């Protein structure tokens, strides 16, 4: 690794007619992808377009039902990630795989299959320094990974692959955790390496700006199929989004009716909050959601949207600012949730909204168990009434369960979310807080759940919707905001903007 003369050749990679199904879902349908040696190739597509499935097939996490992988033109048999590594194919995941308590040097050495029993740190250090010298960027070898910034961690993930002599790099949205400046630095350096013929890079992304700035070529997937490819420099942003979105929606969108205008309902005034380490995650967010309106907040995850939802649901402390509803101060307590008729559909319902081991009927009763008719004045519950009400709502909201007494953990994701909808939307709703309500759900559930949210709006609720899915935002929202690095950076009526404009702001191009 010390001599530059011995730099391994960057390989080319192709997938040929690759298909993969999960049950009835056809996740990949006859996808062919070609990444030339020494190129920086972007793989684009909406959520669920099949990008992850494709790279997981390449990496050997999944076995494709049909099709092959060609490495430098020869068929490569990859049955496990280990095979992929042996062939020189490595992947950087969306979430870090480094061990936080180990130092950078320790992470690198232990990742080697031939790590020695007793490590001679002096020798290893020399070799690591020499390796780092040959690299376009470096990371402090002695730093504990948990102390590194996100950008440094991402660099270290990439360095790890290079250290292991993997020259075909797959990056899964590598910049989603980085600041724009960090992202530009890392991608720029990778691009330089590719152009020197040292590596070949396949990057999953949905940031057009990065693709246009750093990539040579691209492939777009849509609903598991190939939707286009070409030169990243030649293609226009609007063509790219056209390929990604397609003829928008086979599914009938939820019907929007003219809701009775009632003026502002939910108002956020200069809200700020910090994470456990004291870093600002929400800064000065001011936003009004009117009654009978859905305001959709778009953005890449990790830009403060989850924290904003936590502020509204009482899971996180407000550092500064105020929430008002109909002009009155709102503190997120149970009494106020009831008083102002505030309801919520948190993201990842199994983690945020239900108790997995309690029954479906009990989970449906979370909002109502302490009020008549479920409980009397003395606080005594009536399980029969809870069960009856659960059964009624299960039928009304079409929750598929063997019985109201089944633990909710036995239900499918879509049905868990329907049960939460049944709990939160069965009464009169004035304010509804929604976060990624359809993430990971099947097609039928998605349209069902979006319709219910729209109906709540049509009945006059003020709905705040946070979603990483631009489709969802455009289908539901009356006004669209973009959140980036904890701030609202863009706000426009849905009728006066389009996916390209919003996408630009999501990708961090302000103004």
């Amino acid at each position, binding site marked *: 690794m010390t001599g530059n003369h011995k730099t391994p050749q960057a390989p080319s990679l192709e997938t040929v007619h690759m298909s993969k199904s999960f049950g009835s879902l056809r996740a990949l349908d006859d996808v062919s992808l070609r990444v030339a040696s020494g190129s920086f190739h972007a793989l684009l597509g909406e959520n669920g377009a099949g990008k992850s499935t494709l790279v997981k097939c390449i990496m050997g996490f999944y076995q494709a039902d049909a099709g092959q992988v060609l490495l430098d033109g020869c068929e490569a048999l990859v049955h496990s990630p280990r095979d992929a590594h042996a062939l020189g194919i490595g992947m950087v995941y969306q979430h870090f795989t480094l061990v936080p308590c180990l130092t950078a040097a320790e992470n690198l050495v232990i990742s080697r299959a031939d790590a020695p029993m007793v490590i001679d740190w002096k020798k290893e250090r020399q070799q690591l320094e020499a390796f780092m010298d040959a690299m376009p960027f470096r990371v402090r070898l002695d730093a504990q990974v948990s102390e590194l910034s996100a950008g440094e961690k991402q660099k270290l993930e990439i360095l790890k692959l290079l250290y292991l002599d993997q020259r075909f790099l797959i990056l899964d949205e590598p910049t989603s955790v980085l600041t724009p400046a960090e992202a530009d630095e890392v991608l720029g350096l990778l691009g330089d390496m590719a152009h020197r013929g040292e590596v070949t890079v396949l990057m999953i992304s949905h940031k057009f700006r990065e693709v246009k700035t750093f990539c040579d070529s691209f492939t777009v997937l849509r609903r598991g199929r190939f939707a286009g490819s070409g030169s990243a420099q030649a293609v226009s942003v609007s063509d790219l989004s056209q390929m990604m979105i397609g003829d928008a929606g086979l599914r009938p969108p939820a019907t929007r009716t003219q809701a009775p205008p009632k003026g502002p309902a939910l108002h956020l005034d200069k809200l700020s909050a910090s994470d456990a380490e004291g870093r600002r995650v929400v800064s000065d967010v001011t936003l009004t959601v009117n009654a009978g309106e859905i305001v959709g907040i778009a953005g890449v995850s990790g830009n403060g949207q989850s924290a904003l939802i936590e502020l509204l649901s009482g899971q996180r402390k407000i550092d500064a600012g105020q929430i008002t509803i109909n002009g009155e101060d709102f503190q*997120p307590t149970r009494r*106020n949730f009831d008083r102002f008729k505030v309801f*919520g559909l948190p993201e990842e319902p199994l983690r945020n909204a239900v108790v997995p081991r309690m029954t479906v009927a009990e989970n449906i009763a979370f909002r109502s168990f*302490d009020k008549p008719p479920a409980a009397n004045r003395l606080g*005594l*519950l009536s399980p029969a009434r809870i069960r009856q009400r659960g059964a009624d709502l299960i039928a009304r909201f079409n929750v*598929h369960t063997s*019985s109201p007494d089944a*633990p909710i953990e036995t239900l499918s994701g879509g049905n868990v979310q329907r049960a939460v909808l049944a709990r939160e939307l069965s009464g009169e709703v004035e304010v509804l807080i929604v976060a990624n309500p359809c993430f990971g759900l099947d097609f039928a559930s998605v349209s069902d759940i979006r319709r219910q949210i729209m109906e709540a709006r049509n009945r006059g609720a003020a709905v705040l919707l946070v979603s990483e899915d631009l489709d969802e935002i455009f289908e539901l929202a009356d006004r669209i905001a973009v959140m980036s690095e904890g701030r609202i950076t863009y706000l426009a009526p849905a009728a006066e903007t389009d996916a390209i404009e919003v996408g630009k702001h999501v990708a961090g191009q302000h103004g």
Partner: protein
Amino acid sequence: MSLSTSFPRSRFRPDARTAAIIESIVIPLGALIASALIFSLFLLVLGKDPIRFFGLVWTGGIGSAFSFQNTLQRAAPLILTGLAFAVPARIGMTLLGAEGALVLGGFSSAVIAIPMVLGGWPVWIGLPVMALAAMAVGGAWVGIAGWLRHYRGVNETISSLLLTYIAVAIMNFLVEGVFRDPGSTNKASTMPLGADWRVGDIPGTSVHWGLAAGLVLAVLLWVLMERTTFGFAARIAGGNLRAAQAQGLPVGKLAVASCVIAGACAGLAGFFEVAAVHGQANASLAAKYGFTGILVAFLARQNPMAVVPVAILFGALAASGGLVQRRMDMPDATMLVLQGIIFVTLLVSETLYGRLPFLQATQSGDRT
């Protein structure tokens, strides 16, 4: 139950609620049987006769009216300490503080009795005051662990155990010092309560009223956990803290309140140890009822009502200990070994929930 394989599936298809009930009976019972078998093997290796052993447990624990009353007598504190573990467990806390609350509670009731006895107070006021003092002190003591957990992030298992050791040391310190009765020569103790200041037996039996208190509390706490808004909220918080927060539930208060209830139960057990058994407070209060209660609660699956029969079972083991010791020439720790084996087997059996083949068919059938 393996019959279900020889019949078409539809013949045996319990709904989810029945399946859960069957599981919560079959699995602990199976674990009990398995531990009896393991213990029998242990005895065989030592050259002892397991059949004789279990026969003696029967004779000494349940066989006669006398022995059964002895069993119930020993079950009384176990019911209370079992409840002391079960209630906070429902909110997701593993508390080992019952022993400390029992010791301090019992001690407090013995101490508060002194001025009342000397002041000639009527007993019908004095005893309830003693009981309340025991519950208040026990509740406050375990409440500390709950508070530390929720507001300071201190692991409640270790802190409650440390509080137990501290409680025993405090009691020893005070019994040896300020509150030592000059008459107690062998074993430092507080002033003995006269016969009229003692809690008597339930009429017609030789079992003290602590058993009745345990039964009443078991029912009350079952109602509290299963049939009140408090219990429902506690179960939400115990099952998923984030969901409880998102529902605006006061999770901190729920946690501390559960701990206070637990400590009060254990403190009450201490009161009965003082007022019904020893007549004074001394080192005998630390008789490990608090620790056996943990096992009782585990076997009862943290269900307050189920605590009662399980406590009686362990009461029977304790009651027959002497007989086994004498007749089979075995050390008194025999019962500790049996308890340890039951405990370990029981925890291993936890892995079977939701995986019993004859029940699983219905549960996975829910998926769509």
